C-alpha cells in the first residue's frame, strides 16, 4: 500500500492486467507517442501519461499508436473484442465521441444482443472528461449521460485513485463494453492504493460518509466538491451522507434508496449538463421509488444549460462549487414540510 496518484493507479491497473492476460492490448492516439519518429519512443505515454512505460514493458505488439482515425480504431476494438482479444482503446477527450459514436452505440453496445447472445464484447474505451483546465467547449464536457442512455454499455466514473485502479481492473475483466471516464483534473490527485491487484465491483456505490441530515449523491470530481461542502456543513451541525456512484450503468439503486430512506433529503451533484443528465435520472428514480421517504423535494446541483466557457472566471462559475452544494442543502432543509 502506498500513496499514488490517480494516473499511477490507472497505469498500475493496466500493467497488472497486461501481465496477467496476454490478450489485453492497448491502442489509441499517442498511447506511446513517437511511433515512426526519430526521437523518443513512448514520448507521451498517452495524452495524460496514463499509459507511459507500457511500451518498454510489453512491446509494440501489445500497445500501439494509431492515426487520428477514431472510427477506424474504435471499430477495430469492436472487431478485435469479437475475435479473441481484450482491447483497451482510448479517445483522448470524451468530446471526440462524435467521430466514433456509431462504433460505440450501434456496434459495440448492440452486437451481443443482436446476435442472440452469441458474441462477447470485452472492450474498454477510456476517455478523459471534465472542465476546470480552461480547455473550452470542445474539450471539457462530461458526456457520460449519453453513454448511460444506451443499453448494452457500462459506464464507469471513478472519483479517487483506489477506486480508479480497482474499477479499471474490473472493466478489463468484464465481458461487456465498458466506457471508462477519467476526470482530467483528477490525474494528479493522490490517495492510498494497494500494490496488489484487486477489483471494485460495478453497481456498488461508494459510501464516503454517513450523516443523518441529508444525502449528497455524486460522482467523479464532484465527490470532492461534496466532501468540502460536507465539512463546512458539519461546522453548522448538519451531518451529510455522501454517496459516490462510481458506476452509473449499472447503477446502485439499492444504496441510493437506502440512504434516501435514512435521511429523507437528497441533493444530487453532477458536472454533466442538466438536461437528461445523471442528476435528472437519479432524481426521477428516487421520486418514483421512494417518494414517501422524502421530507423535501430533491435538489440538483449541475452546471447551467450552456457549453463550457473558456474564460477562467466563467468556467469556475459554470462548475458546481461547494457553496452551490451548501446552498442546495440549506434549501432542502428549509423546504422541509
Amino acid at each position, binding site marked *: 500500500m502506498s500513496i499514488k496518484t490517480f494516473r499511477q493507479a490507472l497505469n498500475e491497473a493496466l500493467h497488472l492486467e497486461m501481465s496477467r492476460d496476454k490478450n489485453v492490448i492497448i491502442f489509441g492516439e499517442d498511447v506511446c507517442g513517437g511511433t515512426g519518429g526519430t526521437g523518443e519512443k513512448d514520448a507521451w505515454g498517452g495524452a495524460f501519461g496514463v499509459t507511459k512505460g507500457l511500451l518498454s514493458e510489453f512491446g509494440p505488439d501489445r500497445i500501439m499508436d494509431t492515426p487520428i482515425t477514431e*472510427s477506424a480504431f474504435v471499430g477495430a476494438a469492436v472487431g478485435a473484442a469479437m475475435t479473441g482479444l481484450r482491447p483497451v482503446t482510448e479517445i483522448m477527450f470524451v468530446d471526440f465521441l462524435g467521430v466514433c459514436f456509431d462504433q460505440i452505440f450501434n456496434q459495440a453496445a448492440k452486437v451481443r444482443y443482436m446476435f442472440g447472445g452469441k458474441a462477447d464484447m470485452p472492450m474498454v474505451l477510456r476517455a478523459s472528461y471534465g472542465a476546470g483546465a480552461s480547455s473550452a467547449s470542445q474539450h471539457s464536457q462530461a458526456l457520460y449521460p449519453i453513454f448511460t442512455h444506451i443499453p448494452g454499455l457500462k459506464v464507469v466514473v471513478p472519483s479517487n485513485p483506489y477506486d480508479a485502479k480497482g474499477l479499471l481492473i474490473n472493466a478489463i475483466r468484464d465481458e461487456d463494453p465498458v466506457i471508462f471516464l477519467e476526470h482530467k483534473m483528477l490525474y494528479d490527485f493522490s490517495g492510498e492504493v494497494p500494490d496488489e491487484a484487486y477489483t471494485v465491483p460495478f453497481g456498488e456505490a461508494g459510501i464516503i460518509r454517513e450523516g443523518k441530515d441529508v444525502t449528497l449523491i455524486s460522482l467523479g470530481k464532484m465527490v470532492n466538491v461534496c466532501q468540502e461542502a460536507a465539512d463546512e456543513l458539519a461546522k453548522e451541525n448538519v451531518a451529510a451522507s455522501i454517496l459516490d456512484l462510481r458506476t452509473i450503468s449499472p447503477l446502485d439503486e439499492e444504496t441510493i434508496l437506502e440512504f434516501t430512506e435514512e435521511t429523507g433529503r437528497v441533493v444530487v451533484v453532477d458536472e454533466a449538463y442538466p438536461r437528461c443528465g445523471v442528476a435528472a435520472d437519479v432524481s426521477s428514480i428516487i421520486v418514483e421509488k421512494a417518494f414517501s421517504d422524502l421530507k423535501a423535494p430533491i435538489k440538483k446541483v449541475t452546471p447551467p444549460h450552456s457549453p463550457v466557457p473558456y474564460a477562467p472566471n466563467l468556467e469556475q462559475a459554470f462548475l458546481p462549487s461547494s457553496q452551490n452544494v451548501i446552498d442546495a442543502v440549506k434549501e432542502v432543509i428549509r423546504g422541509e414540510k
Partner: protein
Amino acid sequence: MQLSRDELLSAYQTMKTIRVFEDRVNQEMGSGDIPGAVHLYAGQEASAVGICSLLDSRDQIASTHRGHGHCIAKGCDVPGMMAEIFGKQNGLCLGKGGSMHIADLEKGMMGANGIVGGGPPMICGAALSAKILGTKGVAVAFAGDGAFNQGTTQEALNLASIWQLPVVFAIEDNGFAEATSSEYAVAGDIVKRAQAYNIASEKVDGLNFFEVHLAAKTAIERAREGLGPSLLQIKTERYYGHFSGDADTYRSDEEKNEMRQNKDCLKIFRNKVIGSSLLNEKQLNDIDDKVLELIDNAVKFAREGAEPNLEDLTKDVYLSY
C-alpha cells in the same frame, strides 16, 4: 480454371442457394409475414462465393445491410437464416437481430451491418486479432460503392495499410448506393484511391465467378503471408431495388431486363462450365432441385418456428449486469 469438380459443384450450389433464397424471401415479403425490410443480394452471388469459397474457419467476414449472400457463402445455416429473417426464436440470432444483423461468429461471420461502412473498422480489429494471436487468419470486409465513400471505410483503409493487416476489402460496386448511382457519387476511381493508400488493388468482373476467385486467391494469399491488405473492386449487378419496398424507378426497364438476361452470373457460370465440359447439365439441374428443396424446407422451418418469448426481450443486453 484449376478448381476441382467438387469445388465447382460446391460453388454453383452456394451461388444457386443465394439466388433462390433471395428470390424466395422476395416472394415471402408479399405475404406480410416478414417484419421490416430486406435488402436482397440477388445478382451479386459470384462475388460472395468467389471470395468465401477460399476462406476457412480461421477467417472472418463482415458484411453490409445486404448480407444474406455473404452469410450463406460463409457457411451459415440456411434454415436458421430464414427463421431469423422471419423474426423467430429458432433464428440464427434467436430473432433478436433480423435481416440486417444476421450473424454467426462460430462460422466467422461477424454480422450483416445496418450502418453503411460499419464493417471495415471491425474487420481491421479481426485482422489485428489474427495477427496478434498468430492464427494466419484473414479478414474480409464486404462493402458497397456507397460505403467506400464513408469516412469509416477510408479510415479503415489507412489503418489496414499502416499496420499491414491481413485484410481484403471487397468493394461490391453494383453501380448504386440506394438510389444514387456510383457514377455520380464516387469521386475518382475506386482502385486508384485504394492504391493511394499503398494497398494492392484491382478491378474485377463480378459476374464472372472465376475472375473473382482468381483475384481473391491472390489477395487472400497476400494477406496470409503477412504482406498486408488488398482491395478488390468487384463490378456486379443488384437485381432488386435497394430494399424490398423500392420501386426502383431510378433504373429504366430496359436496363433491368438487360441485367436479368445478360448479366446473370449464374448463367455465365453454367455456360462456362458446360462449355468447357467441366460439369454437365444434369449435375447442375440436380443442384437446382436440391436447392429448391433446401429453401422450401428453410421456409417451412421458419414458419413453424415460435416467436421469441417475451422474457427474452431484455436477455443478452449484457453478459451480467
